[in-house]
């Protein structure tokens, strides 16, 4: 797939939870098509028997004592929340 259509934009935008108007979807279809064509270049690399590199450092099982630490203050955290009540974050009715 090299052409990333406006329908593709809407399809993936739904997973990414971003609203796009029809006109924006057209514009982004051009932008993403360029990147998709770019990514296709990787197909020419021979990666048989090559392990994927998931992380630059090989660190395993980083553990710490199971004690509470770095506990943030609830009131301080709520200061950045747009709407809250009794220490809880308010959202529109979901039912």
């Amino acid at each position, binding site marked *: 797939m090299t052409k990333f259509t406006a329908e593709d934009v809407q399809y993936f935008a739904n997973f990414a939870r971003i609203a796009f108007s029809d006109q924006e979807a057209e514009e982004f279809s051009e932008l993403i098509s360029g990147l998709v064509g770019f990514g296709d270049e990787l197909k020419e690399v021979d990666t048989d028997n090559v392990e994927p590199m998931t992380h630059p450092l090989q660190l395993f099982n980083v553990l710490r004592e199971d004690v509470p630490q770095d506990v943030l203050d609830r009131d301080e955290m709520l200061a950045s929340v747009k709407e809250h009540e009794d220490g809880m974050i308010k959202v529109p009715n*979901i039912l």
Partner: protein
Amino acid sequence: MTLMKKTAAELQALLHNGEVSVKEVTEDSFKQIAALDGQVKAFLALTEEEALAKAESLDNAPKEGRGPLFGLPIGIKDNIVTKGTTTTSASKMLENFVPVYDATAVEKVNEAGMVSVGKLNMDEFAMGSTTERSAFQTTHNPWNLDCVPGGSSGGSAAAVAAGEVPFSLGTDTGGSVRQPAAFCGVVGMKPTYGRVSRNGLIAFASSLDQIGPITRTVEDNALLLNAISGVDHRDSSSSPQQVPDFKTALTGDIKGLRIAVPKEYLGEGIAEDVKDKVRASLKVLESLGASIGEVTLPHSKYASPTYYAIATAEASSNLARFDGIRYGYRAEGAKNLDEIYLRSRAEGFGTEVKKRILYGTYALSADHHEELYVKAMKVRTLISQDFASVFDNYDVIVGPTSATTAYEIGGVVENQLTLYANDILTVSVNLAGIPAISIPCGFSKGLPVGLQIIGKHFDEATLYRVAHAFEQATDFHKRTPSIGEGTN
């Protein structure tokens, strides 16, 4: 003459002898910012009141036990959280966000007695290389105000170059410390992945991001990396590897050093003036006793598509947290939860961020995950192995930091080869997780050229040794832009 163009050692001598106070040093930084930042536009927020209060308390601290960075001003890139001070990542999404804790790197600069003067502009969520993609303002290059400072840490590099602060912190996911350092004629280090804690860094691509210091001189850079390095229980990807004193690496001696120059780094797409300065720099290093050999990094031409697949995939996942619920921008009048998500993200993110989230979502989708994301991770292995084989026979790799000098604001780099070359030079370092430093190595048409020195994992010490030896043998670091000279 401003104090902001002095080195840490010079400032410590003045403080020690009582010729200036920490308060006066701090005031000088704000004076410079007031005089110059209307043109440079490096800062998004200033913390003058807190900074002056801290400076006064530092002046009352005993002189014994003061470290080399005590009382010195620093600016922080705006994607590194600072308790009580807005941290926006230059995005409308976080326009009014005030963090409730300090990033570990910020805690460490505070512990070193540094005085934070404010937050620095950047491309939105660090996605860009010009700082034009900030949702708030475009930063200007102090060497030529019509040009970009580079990015994404453009504010961090421009503030140091202009003499507004002697120190700043930037972040580097694909070149975002090194390229603006090159464009602004200052020193920028991307440390080894894991060297500096990412706790409190607003994540772009978690397997690539690193915080790094930007300064005027190599020694000052080493001092700041000393201060911010080390394992952190709040970032499980930070490394327990021993942190040496980087200052002791500054011996000036590079006799016998083996330098590799990849032919891809001086190939097509790299501007002739940049190549000339890099070749001249190699001669300087040779005259200091280093030997130079040409090598090849055969997979470097795939660095750019590999980087885009991995960085956007990780970004699409990391930026999912901005949902308009707990913090950040929330769309008005949404009727249900889904509408809050869809509209807050549509209205809060800029075009480049949306583009990368979409492509990253595509890269991680069931139909494309194997052929794109996993494939890119395999090519990443090959790119990393290319570096490892070169380091079997060489101590460092040297080349340009960027394919060109700074370009004009609003201009578009149309040459596809130049765009490719830029990515080849910087992103492959992040993919491999190795360290690299950019230092000034000349000027072309009044704009700085950056020399990039790349090293083995956790071998920042050798990079500082080479950079320092070069700096001592040249005087590029002594030149400063003419902006604000009337005020100095």
